[in-house]
């Protein structure tokens, strides 16, 4: 499974993930607290600079990731021009773009494993209250396993359909597809149990 971590290695890849996340939280709060045009403009420019530092490829990659926001920008600007409050519109649009770009920046420079480690660390205190951290980690791994497997099962089912039908499989395979997936879940859980499962530490 592909994650959204950038293949272009930056210095920020090496920084501790926890620190990056904390910084992101603080900056986002400040962004939403200061509705000043010049401040928002400066913040936006700083983020563009951050994206430009690792080079062109990284910048282009980053810009592409915030591109889907353009309709919101258009709606905001049109709306505020109509209500004769364009400055407010620009502040809101800039703030939105900056906040998303910054968050994306953290995602792009942090590996999936590093993120998972932060989550495990955050969850550790909750283990005492019955949160099964191992189960959560395993569930995450399972999702990564299931997503392509579901695709594969879908293909197999479509083949089975095609083998006995002249029409291609349409929406009617949704239910058999889910049935197959449910059965698969049964088998996987049994396979998991056969190799220790997730309850081993709880003496049952």
């Amino acid at each position, binding site marked *: 499974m592909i994650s959204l971590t950038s293949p272009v290695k930056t210095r920020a890849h090496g920084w501790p993930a926890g620190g990056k996340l904390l910084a992101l939280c603080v900056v986002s709060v400040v962004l939403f607290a200061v509705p000043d045009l010049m401040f928002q403009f400066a913040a936006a420019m700083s983020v563009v600079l951050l994206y430009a530092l690792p080079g062109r490829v990284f910048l282009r990659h980053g810009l592409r990731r915030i591109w889907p926001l353009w309709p*919101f920008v258009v709606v*905001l600007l049109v*709306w505020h021009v109509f209500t004769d409050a364009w400055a407010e519109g620009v502040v*809101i649009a800039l703030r939105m773009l900056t906040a998303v770009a910054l*968050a994306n920046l953290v995602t792009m420079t942090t590996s999936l494993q590093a993120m998972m480690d932060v989550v495990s660390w955050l969850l550790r205190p909750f283990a005492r209250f019955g949160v099964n951290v191992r189960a959560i980690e395993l569930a995450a791994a399972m999702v990564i396993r299931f997503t392509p497997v579901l*695709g594969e099962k879908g293909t197999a089912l479509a083949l089975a359909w095609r083998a006995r039908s002249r029409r291609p499989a349409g929406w009617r395979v949704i*239910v058999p597809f889910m049935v197959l997936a449910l059965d698969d879940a049964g088998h996987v859980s*049994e396979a998991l149990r056969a190799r220790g499962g997730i309850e081993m530490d709880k003496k049952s």
Partner: protein
Amino acid sequence: MNSEHNVVQIALFTALIAALGLVPQLTLAFGVPITAQSLGIMLCGTVLGARRGGLAALLFIGLVALGLPLLAGGRGGLGVFTSPTAGFALGFPVAAFATGWVMERLSGVTVVLAAGIAAVLGGVVVLYAFGISGMAIVLGRSLTEAALLVTAFIPGDAVKAVLAGIITAALYRARPHSVFSRS
């Protein structure tokens, strides 16, 4: 039902929401996609019930936050939670939970109908409440103004609620034990 099965079932539905993100989406003029993923949210509740369904959607949102491109159109990462659709994303787990909660209360009604009603209440009413709030905050608009924007989703989501009803009933027929909201 052992705990392995529990975890695997939850992971399976998380993957299912992700897989539904591969169904081609249609992005409306103001930037929120019409997505099959909200059907996935409804099914989490109608099939798995409140607790498990909510956890499946929570796991989904968690993995998106970690940077997996599981949202419709291959989006993901922390940026999702500061964008105008953040309310919907954060509302997914609550909506799935609410759907399941309603489903579990309607044990006297036929599965199709119960699942349909639960999907409307959880997957539409509750989800929209979150989505509207999120848009209002990020776009700096009033709730009424934001609410106006989401009316565009109502026809699509009505169809999805009906589908959720039909699919849940069919699953209940094929694998009665797997429809936890009923067992």
